[in-house]
């Protein structure tokens, strides 16, 4: 019974993005793990301070990641607006919140679909993705594109929403909600699915706090942390935001927390669509950014942190991005120790890792 080293990644059927783990296994049990994360490094931070001017940054940072392009663009827009002392009106805030929440919905649906796939439920994966298509349609209709939304711009949003689109969105969200409830019930009641996910990769609340985990992974362990409640960049509380937590801390709970958040986000989106304040979708912008600031936003995967520094020039001095997946890797490594190799895929995918964010 010797030691066997099993490589997992950088290309692997279970992985949507390249990350590589080297597992030392003894009799199926993982005893040591090594992680490499830099496969998709594109030098975006450097490009942001050399090739691109401050007003092009939202388009650049949107390309950090395909799933949370809205988050990254929103974060940099928020930071630059702080540096330029721009006050946006309520309508812009609401429209931004709308796309942020829609983004969260589609990202969470994708993550849950992937988890279903790696535990052997190809069918559930398809159902989840089919339901997800509705929210993609809504985003496409609102912003004009499917993945690269380019919606937030400095001083506003790219386009206003008309009545027809709002009706379309409401109809689709209603359908989505039904589908989510269906899939959720299956998560709740299926015995085999439970065997594969319940009690697998458990993070206790203490562990989550000690390793500083972020996002749904922390909330699935009962740790109450959410930037939407801690940092006031958009008025989430006004539209019915509620912190979602679960206690179990396993793969199953992480999926369920994400579904809870999807339901909460749907509710928020409906509230926003019903109560859109009047106003312009763009405000006047003057001057150049100056000074330094930090921005924290809640990406679908947890806290996303931006540090921006500018000195009144067209090109910024520093753009630093720290993404949630990076914060969650230490605990991920800890979780593997003592776990079965066959569970490794479910554990990784339940973290919803976003490597292109992490490597930037």
């Amino acid at each position, binding site marked *: 019974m010797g030691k066997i080293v099993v490589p997992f990644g950088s290309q692997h059927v279970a992985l949507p993005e390249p990350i590589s783990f080297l597992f030392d296994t003894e009799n199926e049990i993982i005893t040591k793990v090594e992680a490499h994360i830099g496969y998709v490094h594109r030098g975006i931070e450097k490009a942001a301070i050399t090739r691109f001017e401050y007003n092009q940054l939202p388009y650049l940072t949107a390309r950090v990641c395909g799933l949370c392009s809205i988050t990254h663009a929103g974060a940099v827009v928020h930071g630059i607006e702080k540096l330029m002392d721009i006050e946006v009106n309520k309508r812009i805030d609401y429209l931004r919140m709308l796309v942020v929440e829609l983004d969260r919905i589609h990202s969470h649906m994708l993550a849950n679909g992937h988890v279903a796939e790696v535990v052997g439920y190809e*069918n559930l994966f398809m159902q989840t993705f089919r339901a997800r298509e509705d929210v993609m349609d809504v985003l496409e209709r609102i912003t*004009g594109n499917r993945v690269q939304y380019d919606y937030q711009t400095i001083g506003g949003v790219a386009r206003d929403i008309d009545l027809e689109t709002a009706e379309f969105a409401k109809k689709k969200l209603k359908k989505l909600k039904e589908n989510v409830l269906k899939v959720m*019930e*299956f998560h709740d009641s299926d015995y085999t699915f439970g065997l594969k996910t319940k009690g697998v990769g458990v993070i206790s609340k203490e562990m989550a706090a000690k390793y500083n985990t972020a996002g749904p992974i922390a909330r699935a362990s009962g740790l109450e942390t959410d930037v939407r409640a801690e940092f006031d960049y958009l008025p989430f509380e006004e539209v019915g935001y509620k912190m979602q937590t679960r206690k179990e801390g396993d793969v199953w709970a992480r999926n369920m927390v994400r579904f809870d958040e999807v339901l909460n986000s749907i509710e928020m989106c409906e509230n926003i669509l019903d109560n859109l304040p009047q106003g312009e979708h763009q405000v006047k912008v003057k001057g150049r950014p100056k000074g330094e600031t930090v921005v924290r936003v809640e990406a679908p995967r947890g806290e996303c942190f931006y540090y921006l520094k500018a000195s009144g020039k067209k090109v910024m001095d520093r753009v630093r991005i720290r993404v949630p997946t990076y914060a969650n890797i230490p605990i991920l490594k800890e979780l593997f120790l003592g776990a079965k190799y066959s569970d490794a895929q479910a554990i990784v995918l339940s973290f919803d890792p976003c490597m292109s964010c992490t490597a930037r």
Partner: protein
Amino acid sequence: MLKMFIESLKNLVSEPETIKYPFEPSPEPKGYRGTIHYNEELCIFCDKCENICPPGAIKFVVVDYETGKKEYNYNPYLCIYCGACVRECPKADEGCLVQVETRTPPLGRSVPKGKELGYFINRIDNPKEVESKWREIEELNIKTKEEYKAYKKAKRAQKAAAKAKGEE
């Protein structure tokens, strides 16, 4: 378990969710961000669209230093369709720069043509040349701009000299 089974049976007989693209057309949804169309007659050559464009898909080349005439070059295969140029354009409301709701066809055996696409793509016939020719445009863009600047400066100096002479 039973519920999932019933669901699966339902799916067997329900309508498909997917489109059989490319055998069937896949229409653009309403409000799609498509190709950028340009109208030279309305343009005031302020260069705002060129300056905002994140990937640099719009480049003006000065073709005549005497009159300062510029040519609009647009590379639809570099464009990210963000629409920033249209938002910047002061004449966008009149239709100088508009984003239409149809996609640019993928670069296959032919290149799309049309006056509204600007000079660049209309001068190319071989799709393989798009990249190399665009690099030339980028170089020309920098070169002609610098030369035009120098030309204007020289012109101003000439004028000032003539004026000084006249005053003597």
